[in-house]
């Protein structure tokens, strides 16, 4: 009926628009066995109010970076560069698909991660999962997708992890602002700064506080 050629042009436009909406809606409304409609959400699953499977906490964060996705993928592929923009990562060494991460944890502890790349889609996605002898059981994925023309790339980082000592470990980490959600967001912001401006932004500057150095960030 939307394609009724006898309708006036204006009505055709209006009907066309209505049909487009109805057509789009039919993609999202599925008739279930109980004759009720459900909506398939387009929001990232880490933005859901209720936790996913209730097992591992999942954190996710996205940024817009005004660079082409291939360039961002290429830099991210070199895990050795992570310490440039990841605050608590001291060093990363890579052997084939396996990378070893040296991380500064709360109370000056050293934590070692051992991750294996599980999937690579050139220019688009890198996924990894921890090896059994890693100090923290974790899995992660970084995705690069084109933003609207001229705006660059949407970069999404999704992490799922098992905190070092269960809920208590997470509580301590949160207290020290090393909570993964905050950390991931800040690390991704620093990656954006590095890729867009060529440097990681710092407020390092003098203050009247004896504890501050003019060359270190002031928190």
């Amino acid at each position, binding site marked *: 009926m939307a394609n009724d050629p006898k309708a006036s042009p204006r009505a055709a436009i209006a009907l066309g628009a209505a049909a487009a909406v109805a057509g789009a809606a039919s993609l999202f409304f599925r008739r279930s066995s109980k004759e009720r409609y459900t909506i398939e959400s387009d929001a990232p699953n880490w933005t859901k109010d209720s936790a996913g499977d209730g097992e591992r906490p999942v954190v996710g964060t996205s940024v*817009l970076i005004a660079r082409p996705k291939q360039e961002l993928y290429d830099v991210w592929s070199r895990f050795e560069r992570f310490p440039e923009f990841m605050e608590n990562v001291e060093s990363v060494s890579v052997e084939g698909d396996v990378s070893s991460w040296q991380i500064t944890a709360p109370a000056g502890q050293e934590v070692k991660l051992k991750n294996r790349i599980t999937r690579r889609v050139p220019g688009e996605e890198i996924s990894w999962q921890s090896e059994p002898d890693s100090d923290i059981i974790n899995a992660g994925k970084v995705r690069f997708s084109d933003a609207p023309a001229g705006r660059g790339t949407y970069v999404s980082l999704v992490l799922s992890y098992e905190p070092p000592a269960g809920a208590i470990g997470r509580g301590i980490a949160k207290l020290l602002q090393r909570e993964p959600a905050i950390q991931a*967001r800040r690390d991704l912001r620093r990656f954006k700064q590095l890729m*867009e*401006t*060529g440097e990681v*932004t710092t407020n390092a*500057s003098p*203050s009247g506080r004896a504890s501050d150095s003019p*060359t270190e960030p002031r928190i």
Partner: protein
Amino acid sequence: MRALTWQGRHDVRVETVPDPEIVNPRDAILKITSTAICGSDLHLYDHYIPTLRAGDVLGHEFMGEVVEVGAKSTLKKGQRVVVPFTISCGNCFFCTKQQYSACDNSNPAETSDASDLLMGHPMGGAFGYAHLTGGYAGGQAEYVRVPYSDVGPIVVPNHLADEEVLFLSDILPTGWQAAVNADIEPGDTVAVWGCGPVGLFAIQSALILGAERVIAIDHYPTRLALAKKLGAEVFNYEDVNVREALDEMTGGIGPDAVIDCVGMESHGMSVDNLVDTVKAHLFLGTERPHALRQAILACRKGGRVSIPGVYGGFADKFPLGQMMEKGLTVKQGQTHVQKFTRPLLAMIEEGKLDTTFLISHRASLEDAAEMYRHWHDEQNDYTKIVLKPEMAKGTVEKVLEEPVAA
């Protein structure tokens, strides 16, 4: 080096602090030659802005000589530059849209969480304005580190004196943007609330941008006198019913555009304003939007509301319904300084803009704490203060001839 540090509410001190250093490739270090105290510094002085820390170096209106540059700075040692108070990277989505004050990269990752939570998105970085905007040391000091120095600072020719160009750092482009945001059309009457430095520059800008009439409102006689000198019609809001006066001056229509240059430091004495004042002091709400409420009610139907004044958060009793019923267009926001520095500098060179008429005092940086007290307590006599690190302690020069008696 010597620098003005914030210690607490109504407590600022000039102290010796470490010198700044080059940290990133795009940095530069300036030796400050002139720096001004801003109306918005009073928001810090009064401690209305959260995330200040004792020891923070203040000051966001400054200029000086380049003394050190990072490998990727485009500045050269010895150049005289004026620095925008907003820090902008020049590369992000916002900077490429010339929305410089919304820069997505200049607020460090560690300090941007606070404004992300408070405002919905992280604010751009700014000098000497609490940790909400990045926690950068300001320029009321002998030296300052300027990040992204290839984007912000504007090199000024030697034949222009410091005081002719200093206000390119904030109040001149802020006043200009306020007038631009008023979308002035020929024949328009523009009403400006507040004849502080931003208000005075907004008046001058509105007239240059083609306003037929500008009506300026304040209660300090000296500031009203400065507005009158610029060509504005003026009145004291303590003497008249503001809305009635504006209606009577415009044949019942009201001003075509209204500009609120008062912001949080609204001094209007009325019941609702007193409630706001009490709330602000109790930190229940950070706004005192009395002038803005009045401006919205006074604005003609279908008119424009321009708000350069600093508002820090949520305002109570905001006349949203009136704005809708009257069909008003509202434009506001921090100044995209870098967008305006070049054309405004050209206008200064051509003699089209007077940028020095509002300076009342020149003083040594060493006397900055005392100058803050005067700026806060004697707003009729102190219309703009310029601090100079090279001046000897205890020397204060009165620049403005006789202020008008309050």
